[in-house]
């Protein structure tokens, strides 16, 4: 299997590159997750992020199963209410106490790390999707998909780099995972099979050698940067090598071998709903073809000025005009519509996954899906809890159609990082500790 071939090399390399130093506890982990041996489809994890929170009054759920009632934000989820878990009360202490109301409150989504408030130091924390990517991403051609709709914003926000607001996936504490916003390029990553790349391989070999020759002359932070470079080159080489070998997974095969959608146009789509739909289709395609099992998608950046005029009855930009609406009824109604729109995207993803058959069960049955925002009350930058929704059946482990309420369980029992540990468990990566938590979320899994 690929994993045994890759494992030692990769880790060996990482140690050298100094990247793994940030995650020393990963070293001894058994590389599980290739849950394909029994002939069952592997689990897929996706996270959809929307920025700027919700209006708390509009975010609620009551009851369970078919009787579950949902607040207006979750309007689109009504037909799917038996497919979701409403998570109430999770939060992250680091985000809550940060003095930076926006950027400082980003990492509660997926890492629980602290944003460096020193403008000369870029540092946050590796996110759970990227931990997965590093640990089990080698099982597929593309370790993980990191997608977005809006480009990185090129400015400082209160002296801090907007990189924090433009990334929910961090490959290392000092490096965000490259976010792809071009549907065509994301698509190409899935179909490019590395064959016929003999010359590329030799080019990469040559520059790799050159970089090694440089090593003795490089020190300090420069070394970190050169290591990023080296690792990138190695990753491509591995993909080329892997692709030119025959793929043989025992027992289970993806239900699709060639894309069943057209290659998107080269340009960035001008209409945002179309852009989002394309990105979601690409996530579905990647899962169906088993090109990757890990995906994140930022529907908008933090502090997004996305103009929501494409939603009927909405005018203005998400952050400045709609989130901070001064509780003027008309604008607050528009803000609600933006939230509803975000959950329509989530609903679309769920419906598509449910419609795909993977030999007697749907792709949705083998999925683990998270949708949410880092802020609760968007107008007040509230981070005392996070609006989060979980979906997918996780191979039967997730019992849906219910509310899991942690709000009154005490702060230690409502850590977002506990959720991330639990999710990683399911994906086959068991860590002792992640962020500020060393325990799993209670009452989440059917078999726990």
């Amino acid at each position, binding site marked *: 299997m690929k994993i045994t071939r890759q494992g030692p090399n990769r880790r060996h390399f990482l140690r050298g590159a100094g990247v793994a130093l940030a995650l020393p506890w990963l070293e001894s982990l058994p590389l599980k997750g290739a849950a394909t041996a029994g002939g069952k489809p592997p689990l897929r994890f996706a996270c959809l992020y929307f920025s700027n929170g919700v209006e708390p009054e509009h975010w609620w759920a009551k009851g369970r199963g078919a009787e579950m009632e949902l607040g207006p934000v979750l309007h689109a989820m009504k037909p799917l209410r038996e497919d979701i878990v409403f998570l109430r009360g999770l939060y992250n202490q680091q985000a809550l106490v940060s003095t930076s109301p926006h950027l400082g409150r980003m990492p509660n989504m997926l890492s629980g790390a602290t944003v460096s408030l020193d403008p000369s130091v870029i540092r946050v924390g590796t996110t759970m999707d990227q931990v997965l990517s590093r640990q089990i991403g080698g099982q597929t051609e593309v370790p993980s998909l990191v997608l977005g709709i809006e480009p990185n914003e090129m400015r400082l926000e209160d002296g801090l780099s907007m*990189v924090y607001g433009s990334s929910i996936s961090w490959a290392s504490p000092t490096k965000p995972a*490259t976010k792809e916003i071009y549907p065509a390029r994301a698509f190409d990553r899935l179909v490019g099979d590395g064959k016929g790349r003999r010359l590329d391989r030799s080019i990469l070999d040559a520059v790799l050698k050159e970089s090694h020759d440089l090593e003795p002359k*490089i020190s300090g*932070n420069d070394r970190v940067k050169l290591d990023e*470079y080296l690792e*990138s080159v190695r990753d491509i080489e591995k993909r080329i090598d892997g692709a030119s070998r025959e793929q043989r997974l025992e027992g289970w095969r993806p239900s699709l071998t060639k894309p069943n959608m057209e290659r998107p146009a080269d340009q960035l789509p001008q209409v945002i709903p179309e852009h989002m739909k394309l990105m979601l289709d690409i996530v579905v395609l990647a899962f169906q073809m088993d090109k990757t099992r890990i995906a994140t998608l930022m529907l908008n950046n933090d502090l997004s000025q996305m103009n929501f005029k494409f939603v009927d009855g909405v005018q203005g930009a998400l952050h400045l005009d709609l989130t901070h*609406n001064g509780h003027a009824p008309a604008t607050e109604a528009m803000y609600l519509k933006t939230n509803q729109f975000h959950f329509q995207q989530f609903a679309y993803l769920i419906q598509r996954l449910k419609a795909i058959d993977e030999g007697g069960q749907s792709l949705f049955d083998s999925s683990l899906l998270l949708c949410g925002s880092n802020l609760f009350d968007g107008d007040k930058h509230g981070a005392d809890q996070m609006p989060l929704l979980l979906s997918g059946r996780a191979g039967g482990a997730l019992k849906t159609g219910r509310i899991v309420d942690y709000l009154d369980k005490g702060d230690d029992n409502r850590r977002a990082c506990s959720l991330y540990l639990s999710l990683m468990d399911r994906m086959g990566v068991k860590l002792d500790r992640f962020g500020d938590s060393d325990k799993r979320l209670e009452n989440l899994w059917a078999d726990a």
Partner: protein
Amino acid sequence: MKIAGLLLGLLTVGVVWAETGPTETFRSYCYQCHSKGPGMAGVNLVQLTAESSIAAKYKQWEKVAAALEQNRMPPKGLSQPSDAERLHAVSWIRGELGAYAKSHEGDPGRVTVRRLTSGEYAYSIQDLTGLDLNLEHEIAGDEVGGEGFTNYGDVQFMQDASMERYLEAAKKIANYAVIGAGPLTFFTDPGKTGFELAAVSRISAIYRDNGFRTVSGEGGLPYGLDHYRKALYVAWQYKHRAALGQPAVTLRELAAREKITTRFAQHFWSVMNTAGLGYPSSEIVARWRALPGPSRTMDAKAARAQCDEIQKYMVTWPSWMFGRGDAAVGGAGDERPLVFNDESLKVEERHHFTFVRGGRGVGKAKPIPAGGTARIYLNAVLANPDRAAIPNVMWRNATIAFTTIADRKTGLAKAARLPLRSVLTEESAGRLGDGDFASNGSIAFDVRVPEGATLYSLQVDAEIGKDRAQVLRITISDREDGGSEGIPVWGLVGDPQSKGYGTWKAGVLQYAHLLPPNSHGEATPADKDPAPEPFDSRFNTPEHDEFLQRVKYVRDDRFVVEKILDDATRGKLDQAWNDVYAAFEYHDAYVRLLAKKLGLDLKGKGIADLDLTAIEALPAEPRKYILPLRVDWEKAMAAQLAARPGHVEDCLRFASRAWRRPLTEGERQSLRAFYAAALKSERDHGKAIRALLARILVAPAFLYRMEPATLQRTTVRQLSNWEMASRLSYFLWSSIPDEELRRAAAAGELNDETRLRAQVKRMLLDVKARRLSTEFFGQWLGFYRFDQFRGVDTTRYPEFTDEVKSSMYEEAVSFFDYVVRKDRPVREILHADYTFLNQPLAKHYGVKKEVASKDELVKVDGANEFGRGGLLRLGAVLTVTSAPLRTSPVKRGDWVLRRVLGTPVPPPPADAGSIPADEKSFGGLSVREKLAMHKRNATCAGCHTRIDPLGFPLEKYDSVGRLRDKYSDGKPIDDSSETADKTQIAGVDGLVKYLDGRQEQVTRTLAQKLLGYALGRTVQLSDEPLIARLASSGGDATFADLAARIVVSKQFRNRQEQDARPQTATLRGTR
């Protein structure tokens, strides 16, 4: 953790703090808010005093000092320190900061290796290849860090996905390389097509720069016409060199002065001194010889004027002869090619002419006077002038037919042909007589036009008269000047057997050989150009068209090669032709068509199979054509092969430019070895070269601005000359060093302060310095890539078109480019009374003043009068500081504080309220009234009394940068404000004035940002002395002053080594 920090603190700040610090003052007045957790506004004085060095968080210390100095802290209503306590606290902080700055002045600081930003990447490629490939959007996106710039190493990440993009981009660039018989170059079109087009464009450029065409056929314009004029003048000067007082002057020198080649001057001189030339060369020589020698009246100007006259004759003669172009009796628009051969110089004893008046091209024609009379001219002149002779011609069988223009297609064939005499007016009939008639020279007559006729067709035969030696040039038209309201007709009449004709034809061919009107045929023949022998050269024949489609290019440049080009250019021309031949199966196509034409069965053999033996075996006629083709082909193939080693060397030079330093011997070898390996595996020279180029462009040495450690255990080292060249060029040009910088680096000049200053000056005059305006000013002031700004709701503002948007962007860029490159004092950034406009932008702004240019932006003076000019009135700035549907005085005020004054306020508290989106939905409250709430709320007031007064003065500009006099709800605009220190500001003029009083602060911000941009790091306390010096020059400094002082500073010219011990062991393990 905390204890460790405190311990560390005790050794440094802490010790000093404990002994001399204003401990009690802080404890009594500040700790209440600033000692726990992150502290209010992010300031925790307990932590601050525990830092290892006062430099670590010096900006916070400065904030504390400023807050105390300006009595902003403690907030009103809380107990206040005494003046003495306040003074002590401030002077302690300032003293400590100053002492540190002084002792660490010029510390280069920690600079992480910088990857090229997307902008730098695109510019570097542009300067390397000469091509603008718009790559900035194809490679990994940028992030911003440090002082707010993308060139900050820590935010420049690399991942496999970004590396893939670099690899893609590199391969794409390599595909633009032209790999042929010449040196490696790049061309605007990629791949095989690009290779072919590149070759043709090189050929055309050589022809255009060196050759001339007086009549250039279909769609072409004449060019190079001054060649003969200059040659005439050179020959005249040379002839009279003694009289002109320069007896020793050579033709070469004279030619050089006139910028023609020696070869051409020599050729022309020898023709002018050849006796016994035939007509028309004889006429040209005679005219030149008749030029008077130098005298008071025949000065240089007069001589040139007279040469011009001769040149005009030379240009017009062929046009006259063949009825072309302006001089054409044949009329303008005649696009038949000008060739001199048996076919074009053919004469007939009797020639049948048809002249249709009102036929094709009738659109412009005036109708013939139906029911009146029409005059027709039969012109006959001697083509071989003999002053004594009178042209004598017989006109026979003249008939005419009438119809209407509308019915010309079918009507004309059906119309009765009437004998000419039956429609002649009485007067004309009297002159012409009854039947055929003779004329001595030209003749005209009138015909009666029947009622309703709008078109006539005259047919007549012209026959050579009594003097058989004459060659007659005949034209028929309806105008005395030979012009025509119809398609004119032209023809030569003469006796092909006569001696007169023989002499004339030999003369014309000689002229075409010695003094041709066209120095060459274009490489890409136009539709109407002839195909070479033996193909049917006539326009629109299948054979002619097939030749032009399949073979495409014709080399017909004997004159320009033999009589004009110098040796070096000849070589380049041959290389380019060889590339054309190699670009596709040129010779195979040619041979196939020859075989078809000559009925030859080559049994599928191509040019490569037709070796000398095979060609010898061919019949004589095909052999005559195929042999030279084979010779050309062999030359072309040999040239391709011969150029290959050169390409590898070209790549090495390319690598040295791309990597911004000389290559080491090891690198040269490894690049060569890479080529050799790629050639072996791909078996294709072109592929191997392209792979080599791609490999050079994905190397860390290109993508990263490496400043490697020297392995010496020093903490600070001076940068090498090559490193300095890179720093300079990326600072001022966002790109690789040019040849001059490379020369200076090689000569070791870049550690000399004077020379560095001179380089800065030179570089800032270069057009590449415009990139400072896009990259530095754009990022500093927030209009970076404004041409792609998406923050305007174009449903509400449909007038904010892409054209307006990109014009606004160009306005901002052009403005700063002007300030930088025209060396204006930096005060003008705020004060300029000019701006840059085109018509769409002027219209958008509502500027009444006339702006000449439709697209390119032009400088418009006196702009303040109509509300433009200077940074604060730039449309791009006013737009980016607005919300999509309204202006935002808070955003604008914050922008002024942060970006212009460099004194940002802390972020608002997380739970700050907000104001509604749309100015239409304020619920009766104006923005001002809404924001007045800021003042009433103590939490807000601290910052907003600083922010808002700087935003309101810009309220008369709407959210897309236009002046307005009321809000869209009709409410009046009040653009006055009062600052925290009670200064009244009235409108944008008031704001400019207010900032003028703070010019030193503005210059300080510029200096700080510029330093951060130049160094790729945040500024630190040890930069303070430099920044203070730069700031003290206030508004009088020019950008070049500031840039030069940064370039010669210690921090720019040195590098801090970090952790110089290599860690090779672990990394080796990864292989």
